[in-house]
């Protein structure tokens, strides 16, 4: 248990630092690379939470596909790849009190409702078979809808981005 807590602490610190760099750094490509660090840390946390299949999916879909999309988007929408002065809104400082207030309310609510409750330590890894039994059993209709969402997204992205 101690080893898991130490691993959690290290990964959580890396994730928070990476997330702060994503929203503060003045270079879009660097922000995308910091985001890779945060997403990889999230995959590691999923492994700590005994969710191996979701962790692998996170690596494949986010770090593999979504980050390539982001880098392509950066490449296609910007002339220069260096630093940029105008990445923040003129009223960017309004975000600080808004997010700190939200964080305070959330931490207050979480500590008052969960307190020192511990996660079960004897749980086994959730097998991929159990997840697929859920997806193709009770959650079949949402899965079906999701495949339509992906189809519509593919068609929509092609229609929007094509030149004519």
């Amino acid at each position, binding site marked *: *248990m101690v080893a898991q807590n130490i691993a*959690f602490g290290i990964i*959580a610190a890396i994730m*928070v630092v990476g*997330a*702060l760099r*994503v*929203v503060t750094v003045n270079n879009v490509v660097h*922000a995308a690379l910091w*985001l890779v660090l945060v*997403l990889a840390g*999230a995959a590691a*946390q*999923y492994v*700590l*939470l*005994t*969710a191996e299949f*979701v962790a692998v*999916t996170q690596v494949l*879909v*986010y770090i593999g596909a979504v980050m390539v999309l*982001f880098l392509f*988007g950066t490449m296609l*929408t910007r002339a220069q790849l260096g630093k940029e002065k*105008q*990445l*923040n*809104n*003129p009223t*960017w*400082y*309004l*975000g600080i009190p*808004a*997010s700190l207030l939200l*964080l305070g309310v959330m931490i207050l609510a*979480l500590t008052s409702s*969960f*307190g*020192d409750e*511990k*996660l079960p*330590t004897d*749980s086994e890894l*959730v097998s991929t078979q159990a*997840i697929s*039994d*859920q*997806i193709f059993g009770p*959650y079949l209709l949402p899965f079906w809808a*999701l495949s339509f*969402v*992906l189809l519509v*997204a*593919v068609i929509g*992205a092609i229609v*929007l*981005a094509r*030149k004519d």
Partner: protein
Amino acid sequence: MLVNQFLILAAVLFCIGVYGVIARRNAVMVLMSIELILNSVNINFLAFALRNGSVDGHVFALYIIAVAAAEVGVGLALVLLVYRNRKSIALDELSEMKG
């Protein structure tokens, strides 16, 4: 491990993402902040799946990953379209619908 350590980590990431959505001017950076928010939600789902000993949280996390991929695809296509029409993706310049 406490339940709260994962939930508070997710809350911190969520608030950083909210700050990014408010503060950033570049549309691609706003999409990246939205990814941070979606990831924090996934951590919450998996923490509660472990706490309740159920598989449903894993299914929801997978669905969120799929929807996020679709959202990024359409979002970047929109950004590309805006860039092609205006040569800029600064969000505060898109004010044609202002009353």
